[in-house]
């Protein structure tokens, strides 16, 4: 279950599929569900002081005096995800992959932006895409029509992609060495920010129909991104949107956040986005060519 928003079912595993395959026959993929727990009385408190619990269970009480022992653990709770993210980084380094994690709220134009980027750059850059949604293959089918290799991750009731899902997806994708992997995360400005996928860079997309104060409302997301794409700029004549205010809010949360104004629909500003993509591709190649 996601503890930022309470969604998701315990033990539920994400489904990974490729457009065109028969999902019923896919033995690798099935939603796994834990059995229902019997609800005993939970003794659960958030206070710091000790309680004497009155147990009304049927088990026998041990009357031998055990000495209580405190064990220091000091382990990060997202340790398992972070460990997997580092394993992913190892795979990405070995295969010389540049990985971009695209995040935004639903409806900001991530998929349209990706479609356009694939269609315009696929002859120059070797791309592969990982699509994340709760349900349907709709987005992966749109990318599939561009001819770029794609896998769909369906999280079921989950609200974010995590490192384990990306690990499985990349193995399924089996991209060429030197490729750029675009991860379209689940539409959500809250939870995806918490989960390191092993990416090279995080890009947040904000559309001008969303309100200038998105960055201060969702600071964690904007703080951890290196680029913000301001999409749907073709609609500006019909809106009261103040771009400089949006950029100012963004810089309050993250002074180093770069902004690019664009329209995936008309093509305005896309060249700058392509230049940025090419620059991070070169950067990862530079560190490898020591």
């Amino acid at each position, binding site marked *: 279950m996601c503890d*930022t*928003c309470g969604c998701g079912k315990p033990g539920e595993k994400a489904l990974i599929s490729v457009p065109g395959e028969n999902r019923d026959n896919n033995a690798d993929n099935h939603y796994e569900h834990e059995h229902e727990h019997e609800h005993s009385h939970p*003794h659960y408190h*958030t206070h710091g002081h000790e309680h004497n619990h009155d147990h009304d269970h049927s088990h026998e009480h041990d009357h031998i005096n055990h000495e209580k022992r*405190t*064990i220091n*653990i*000091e382990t990060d709770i997202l340790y398992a995800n972070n460990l997997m993210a580092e394993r992913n980084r190892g795979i990405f380094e070995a295969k010389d992959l540049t990985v971009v994690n695209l995040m935004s709220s639903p409806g900001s134009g991530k998929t349209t932006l990706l479609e356009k980027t694939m269609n315009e750059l696929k002859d120059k850059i070797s791309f592969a895409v990982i699509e994340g949604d709760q349900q349907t293959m709709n987005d992966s089918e749109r990318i599939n029509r561009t001819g770029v290799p794609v896998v769909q991750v369906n999280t079921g009731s989950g609200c974010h992609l995590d490192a384990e899902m990306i690990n499985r997806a990349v193995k399924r994708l089996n991209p060429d060495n030197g490729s750029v992997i675009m991860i379209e995360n689940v539409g959500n400005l809250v939870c995806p920010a918490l989960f390191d996928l092993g990416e090279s860079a995080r890009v947040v997309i904000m559309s001008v129909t969303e309100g200038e104060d998105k960055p201060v409302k969702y600071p964690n997301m904007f703080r951890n991104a290196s680029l913000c794409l301001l999409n749907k700029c073709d609609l500006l004549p019909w809106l009261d949107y103040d771009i400089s205010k949006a950029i100012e809010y963004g810089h309050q949360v993250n002074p180093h956040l770069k902004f690019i104004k664009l329209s995936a629909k008309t093509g305005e500003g896309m060249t700058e986005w392509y230049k940025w993509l090419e620059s991070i591709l070169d950067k990862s190649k530079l560190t490898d060519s020591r």
Partner: protein
Amino acid sequence: MSVVQNIINIVSAESDKNGGRRVLEVNLEIGNLSGIEYGSLDFALKHLAPGSVIESAEISIEKPEGLARCNNCGNEFALNDFIGCCNLCNSFDIDIIKGRELRVKSITVE
């Protein structure tokens, strides 16, 4: 991967290493800038604790206050939000140095 499931996994692994003794207390350290919603965490703990290694454990959460350092003037100041500007020089160029903790600190077993 859920945060609570990870807590249970971490505690379970440690309890196994110590002869499977009953876990009495779980001490978490979750800073107020960790991105975790304490209310949702309570809710998830209530639902996932029964039947698990932490079902009879008392859960305590230490909530370290946020602390930031200004990259412009070096000043350190308290922070309760992801957005903050230095209280000395008003720069927004800050690093969060405390408050992002999300850890299982310790457990107490029988």
